C-alpha cells in the first residue's frame, strides 16, 4: 500500500475540478487582456492594422479552403470538372472559390505592404530581427502556397504556369533536372504532379505556415507588441539630442494607456471590414477559369498571376537560372540581411563613402561604372529593369555631388539613409516597375502593348 499515491485531499480535489480550471483560464486570459498599450499606438496610422488584416485573409483562406476540399478531387480531369461543378452546380460554390482566390491575392498584397510598413517604421531593428526573418519566411511560404494552389483547377493557365515554374527549377546547374523530377513526380506536369501539389497546398505548406505564424505572434508579444522597447521594457527614444529624448520621454509618460482589448477590438473590426470587402468582390467578380489544361496548345500570352509577372518580366531578359534562381535568391538574402545591415554602416564604410563623395568626379565615375556594369549584365534593352537602378544612382549622385549639403533638406535626408534603406527601396521600386510592366504592358509573344489599346 505504501507505493500507492495518496488520495488527493479535499482542497486538492477542488484544484482538479474542471470548474477551477476554467476559472484559471479566465484569469489568464483576463491578464493578457489587461496588458496596456499607449493611446498613440492604437490609431490606424501607426500600423494600418496590416498584420492583423493579413492574419484575417489567412483565416479566410483556411475556412474557404477546407470547404472547397469537400468537393475537390486531385485527379485529371476530375479536378477541372469539380471546378465546373463549383461554378454551376454547387450552392455558393462560385462564391467560395472566388473568395479563396481574391483573398489569396489580398494576402500576398497585404504581406508586401506589411513588410514595407514594418521596414520604413524601422520595426525590424533589434530585438526584432528574428521576427523580421520569420516574416520573410512567411512571405515565401505564402508565395509557394499561391504557386501550388495555382495548379489545382487544372485549366490552361494552371498547366502552363506550372510547366514554366518547373522548368525554372530545372535550370539549376547539376541538381536542376533531378529536383524537377522530384517535385513533379515525373518528367512532365501530370497526375503525379497534381497530387503532389495538392498535398503541398493543403497540408505541408499550411502546417508550416501556421507553425511559423505562432512563433511570429509569440515574438510580437515578447518584443513588446507595437512598442519599440529596450532591454528594461522602456520605450526606445530616437531623438537626435538629449532634449528631444527628454521631451519624448515626458510625452510618453503623460500619454494615456489603453487596455489591450481596445486594440484587439479595433483589429477584429478591421478584419471584418476587409471580409465584407472581399465578400462583395467575390459576389461581383467570379474567379476566372480557363479551358481544360491542354498540353498541345500554349495560350498566348501565358501570364502568371500579378505577383509573379515581375518575375516573368525578368525571365524575358535573363536566362532562367539568373531570373528564376539567382535574382530571387539575392532578393531573399537581401531581405534576410536587412536587420543586420548596420554592421556595414560602421565608421570604415562611412569613411570610404565620404572619400568617394569628397570629389564629385570620383563619385560620378563610380556611379557610371555601376550603371555600365549593370547595363551590360541586364543588356541595354531591359530598360524597365534598369529604371529603378537609374533612379537609385541618380538620387545618390544628386545627394553627394555639388556644394555644401546644408540648406538642402532632401539632400541631407538622402545622405543620412543607411544601406538597408537603399536595399529595401531598390527592391520595392524594382518590384513595382517590373510587376506593372509585366501585368499591363505585355501582350502576345511578350511584346510591348499599350493597355488601352489591347
Amino acid at each position: 500500500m505504501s507505493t500507492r499515491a495518496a488520495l488527493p485531499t479535499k482542497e486538492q480535489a477542488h484544484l482538479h475540478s474542471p470548474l477551477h480550471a476554467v476559472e484559471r483560464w479566465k484569469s489568464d486570459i483576463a491578464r493578457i487582456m489587461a496588458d496596456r498599450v499607449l493611446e498613440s499606438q492604437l490609431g490606424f496610422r501607426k500600423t494600418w492594422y496590416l498584420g492583423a488584416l493579413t492574419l484575417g485573409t489567412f483565416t479566410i483562406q483556411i475556412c474557404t479552403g477546407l470547404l472547397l476540399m469537400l468537393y475537390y478531387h486531385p485527379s485529371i480531369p476530375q479536378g477541372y470538372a469539380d471546378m465546373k461543378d463549383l461554378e454551376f452546380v454547387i450552392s455558393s460554390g462560385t462564391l467560395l472559390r472566388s473568395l479563396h482566390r481574391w483573398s489569396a491575392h489580398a494576402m500576398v498584397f497585404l504581406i508586401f505592404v506589411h513588410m514595407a510598413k514594418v521596414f520604413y517604421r524601422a520595426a525590424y531593428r533589434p530585438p526584432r530581427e528574428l521576427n523580421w526573418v520569420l516574416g520573410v519566411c512567411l512571405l515565401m511560404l505564402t508565395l509557394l502556397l499561391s504557386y501550388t494552389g495555382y495548379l489545382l483547377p487544372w485549366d490552361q493557365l494552371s498547366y502552363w504556369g506550372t510547366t514554366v515554374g518547373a522548368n525554372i527549377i530545372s535550370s539549376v546547374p547539376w541538381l536542376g533536372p533531378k529536383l524537377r523530377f522530384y517535385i513533379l513526380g515525373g518528367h512532365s506536369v501530370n497526375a503525379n504532379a497534381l497530387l503532389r501539389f495538392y498535398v503541398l497546398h493543403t497540408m505541408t505548406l499550411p502546417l508550416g505556415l501556421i507553425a511559423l505564424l505562432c512563433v511570429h505572434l509569440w515574438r510580437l508579444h515578447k518584443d513588446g507588441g507595437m512598442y519599440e522597447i529596450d532591454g528594461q521594457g522602456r520605450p526606445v527614444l530616437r531623438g537626435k539630442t538629449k532634449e528631444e529624448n527628454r521631451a519624448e520621454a515626458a510625452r510618453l509618460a503623460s500619454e494615456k494607456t489603453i487596455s489591450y482589448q481596445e486594440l484587439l477590438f479595433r483589429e477584429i473590426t478591421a478584419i471584418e471590414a476587409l471580409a465584407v470587402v472581399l465578400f462583395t468582390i467575390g459576389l461581383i467578380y467570379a474567379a476566372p477559369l480557363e479551358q481544360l489544361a491542354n498540353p498541345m496548345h500554349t495560350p498566348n500570352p501565358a501570364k502568371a498571376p500579378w505577383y509573379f509577372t515581375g518575375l516573368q518580366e525578368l525571365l524575358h531578359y535573363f536566362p532562367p537560372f539568373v531570373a528564376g534562381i539567382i535574382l530571387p535568391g539575392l532578393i531573399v538574402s537581401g531581405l534576410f540581411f536587412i536587420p543586420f545591415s548596420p554592421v556595414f554602416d560602421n565608421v570604415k564604410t562611412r569613411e570610404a563613402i565620404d572619400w568617394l563623395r569628397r570629389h564629385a568626379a570620383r563619385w560620378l565615375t563610380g556611379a557610371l561604372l555601376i550603371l555600365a556594369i549593370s547595363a551590360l549584365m541586364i543588356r541595354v534593352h531591359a530598360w524597365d529593369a534598369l529604371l529603378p537602378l537609374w533612379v537609385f544612382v541618380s538620387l545618390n549622385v544628386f545627394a553627394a555631388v555639388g556644394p555644401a549639403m546644408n540648406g538642402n533638406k532632401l539632400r541631407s535626408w538622402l545622405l543620412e539613409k543607411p544601406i538597408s534603406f537603399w536595399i529595401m527601396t531598390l527592391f520595392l521600386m524594382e518590384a513595382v516597375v517590373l510587376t506593372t510592366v509585366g501585368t499591363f504592358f505585355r501582350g502576345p509573344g511578350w511584346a510591348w502593348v499599350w493597355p488601352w489599346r489591347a
Partner: protein
Amino acid sequence: MSDQSTPKQDGDAVDLNRRRFVKTGSTSLAIAGVGACVFGLRYLSPNVLYEPSPVVNAGKPEHYRAGSVTLDAKNGIFVIRAAEGFYALSAVCTHLGCLTTYKPDTDEIDCPCHGSTFRKDGRAIAGPAPQALPWLKVWLAEDGNLMVDRATRVAPYSEYVTA
C-alpha cells in the same frame, strides 16, 4: 527536481549517465534522421511512370508535302520535309518548356510565352531561348512509317531520312 532528491555523492554519476544518455540518444537520432532522409528521398522519386513512350509514329512520309513544317502538338515535335529529306525537331521551347508553333508567313518558329524565335533548322534567333531546338532521331520503320525518338538527340544537319 531529481538533482535535489539525489544524494550528493551520486551527483556526478547521475550527470555522467545523463550526458551519456543525451549523447547516445542524439547520435542515434541523427543516424535515424539521415536514414529517413535517404529513404524519404528515394520514396519521392517514383520507380514506375505511366507516361507515354518517347518513340512516336509520325505516319507515312508521303503525307508530308515537300518543304512543309508540321507540328505534332500531341507529342511536341515538328516533322520537317526539307530538300535533303526528313528531320524532326523538338517543339518544346528550350527556354521554359512552352509549346512553340510554326508561322508560315515569317517561316519561323515562335514561342508564345516569352517571345523566343527559332529558324526552321532549330537555331534560336531572338528572345531569351538559350539553345536551339534539338534535332531528334528519325528513321523509317519496316512498315514504311516515319518514326521519331523524342529521347534521342542528334547533331543538326547530321541525319536526314529520305523516303
